[in-house]
């Protein structure tokens, strides 16, 4: 089975987010990046499928942010092929454009299964993964929690529904799955392996045509949330804050 997974980089919220001069975008030059956690689960699911049933894994990522670190870690996890899509812009593409860019490269790889994180916290113009499936003209199922092989031309995927109902579905390939969680949490890779990957891993570069579409939503303003009238921000020392919380919980009848 040929599996493709995608990796998207997101601003690491450990650093304060800085809004640029336009007031409509983050200043990505000031950001530190990490891998979208759902993409990390998608990669783990791919590696688990490879270990259990045999498969080749190709990771595709935009050359943006700290992508090399993410790709070396992917190499250390045992992926077979790594493709970087050259990208010159200072900010990431909006989701519909990203779907078009990724689809341009993935289409030629002719994968059986595409695993991508079901969402990321930077999506504002639609959700990347179903848009990717649309661009590839492939079926899509989202919110998947665990995938198993069930034959040459199909896979079994699991999905939870409200009301404690769990579905097991057989999906004919090729297909795109939006991964919420892998069957097991993403593994820890010893740094020695990442270091070895830094010396030996090979990244291919495959260019994609620039996206032909513009965002359907115009972003007018990006700003930090404003404290609402009904919110009380508690200031003071740790003990003053703690006392106020205890007082509030007592007033509301939570503490007696």
């Amino acid at each position, binding site marked *: 089975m040929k599996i493709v997974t995608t990796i998207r980089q997101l601003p690491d919220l450990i650093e304060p987010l800085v809004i640029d001069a336009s007031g409509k975008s983050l200043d990505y030059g000031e950001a530190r990046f990490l891998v979208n956690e759902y993409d990390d689960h998608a990669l783990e699911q791919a*590696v688990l499928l490879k*270990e259990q049933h045999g498969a080749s894994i190709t990771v595709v990522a935009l050359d943006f942010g700290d992508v090399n670190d993410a790709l070396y870690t992917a190499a250390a996890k*045992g992926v077979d092929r790594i493709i970087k899509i050259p990208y010159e812009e200072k900010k990431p593409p909006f989701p519909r454009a990203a779907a078009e860019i990724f689809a341009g490269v993935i289409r030629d790889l002719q994968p059986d299964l595409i695993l991508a994180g079901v969402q990321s916290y930077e999506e504002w113009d639609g959700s990347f993964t179903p848009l990717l499936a649309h661009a590839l003209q492939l079926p899509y199922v989202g919110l998947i929690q665990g995938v198993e092989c069930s034959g040459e031309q199909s896979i079994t995927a699991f999905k939870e529904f409200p009301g404690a109902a769990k579905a097991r579905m057989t999906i004919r390939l090729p297909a795109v799955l939006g991964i919420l969680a892998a069957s097991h949490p993403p593994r820890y890779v*010893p*740094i020695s*392996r990442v*270091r*070895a*990957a830094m010396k030996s891993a090979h990244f291919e570069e495959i260019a994609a045509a620039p996206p032909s579409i513009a965002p359907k939503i115009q972003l007018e303003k990006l700003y930090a949330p404003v404290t609402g009238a009904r919110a009380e921000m508690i200031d003071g020392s740790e003990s003053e804050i703690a006392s106020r919380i205890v007082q509030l919980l007592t007033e509301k009848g939570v503490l007696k």
Partner: protein
Amino acid sequence: MQQTQPTIAYDYTPSTLDVEKLLRTGDFLGCLQCGMCAGSCPLGYAMNYTPRKIILNTRAGNLNKILVDPSVWLCISCYTCSSRCPKKIELTDLLWPALRDRALQEGFQPPTELQDAFEKIYKYGNSLGGSPRKRMDWAAGLDFPIANLAKDPHPVDVLWIVECFPSYYPRNQIVAREFARMLNILEIDWGVLGHKEKCLGDCDRLYGEEGLFETLVENNIELLHDYQFNTILVIDPHAFRALNRFYPLFGATFPAEHYATFLAKRLGPLQPFLKKPIPAKVTYHDNCCIGRRCQCYEPPRQLLQAISGIELVEMERNRDNALCCGGGGGGMWLDGHITKHGGHRLSDERVKQAAASGADILAVSCPYELSRFEDSIKVAGLESRLKVRDLIELLAESMDIQEGGKS
């Protein structure tokens, strides 16, 4: 815990450690199988594989059984086994890291709480997951400028590597500020590395993350060679141990000193400032790195005895026989695993020993111990009887430069 065998993508030979080779060399060939290590280990009762059994079973070809066992992640690097071994085999510094490195290389997952610490150290250069840009936040509120060599490189006599807990953890930041005031009063020519500083990495090595340790060592060696200084000063005994013992293995010998010996050597100039008496019974907890490993028992006690009013009392287990706080060598991030398999944390046991000594104050000289022991004091219900103070805090109080203003 479910173990998943990963795809081996690349061959990797650890540069310094191979557990099977190790057991066929020098000192390890002399293991008498006497069991002193197992009987001495404060967590030996919880281990299916004690050092003696690890040596025996590895030789018998049963290494794979050991690697999946929770014992692999129970050693807290207290050095008791190494210090009592009649053949003086370096079990703590060699056997455990080699075993853990092998477990990691074979794809066995370390407890998740430890993975989290490893990932934060790799990504941010500190185990607390703090932003590298906020490394100097500890110094906020000091009323004098600090020589931040990252911004203004110049030669200094003493380079203070503040390390992770004093830089980021609020309880330890207090100690860091008091120490900064103390260095100024002693007219030391000192500086710090500011946001360029990264974890020195001792605990990562002892927990078998050899690749992470090597990465940190390479970064730090390159960084330190950019600056001119005579001595590196540290608050963290593990950092001292790393610089003293492990950095030279990578060809980097930097003169390093832990603050207890640094200050004890300067008791002459320090004494006139120790004006305010502290009327209290104080017991000192010998941390494992400075104590058992480096045999430094008297300088911390000399500092305490220099403060008038302090009556130094000893716990039954002191000096070579001191019980570990349970936080060393990665134990700081394994309380869940150790409690699950060992039933309790060693710090919970140690505060009871401190209370039994009759002391009002448990004095410490390691950043991990403040929060560990304060937490355990709450667990033991000893809050009204026992307080934890770093040596620096007691000295600062006597010098009337303690946090919160003069009294």
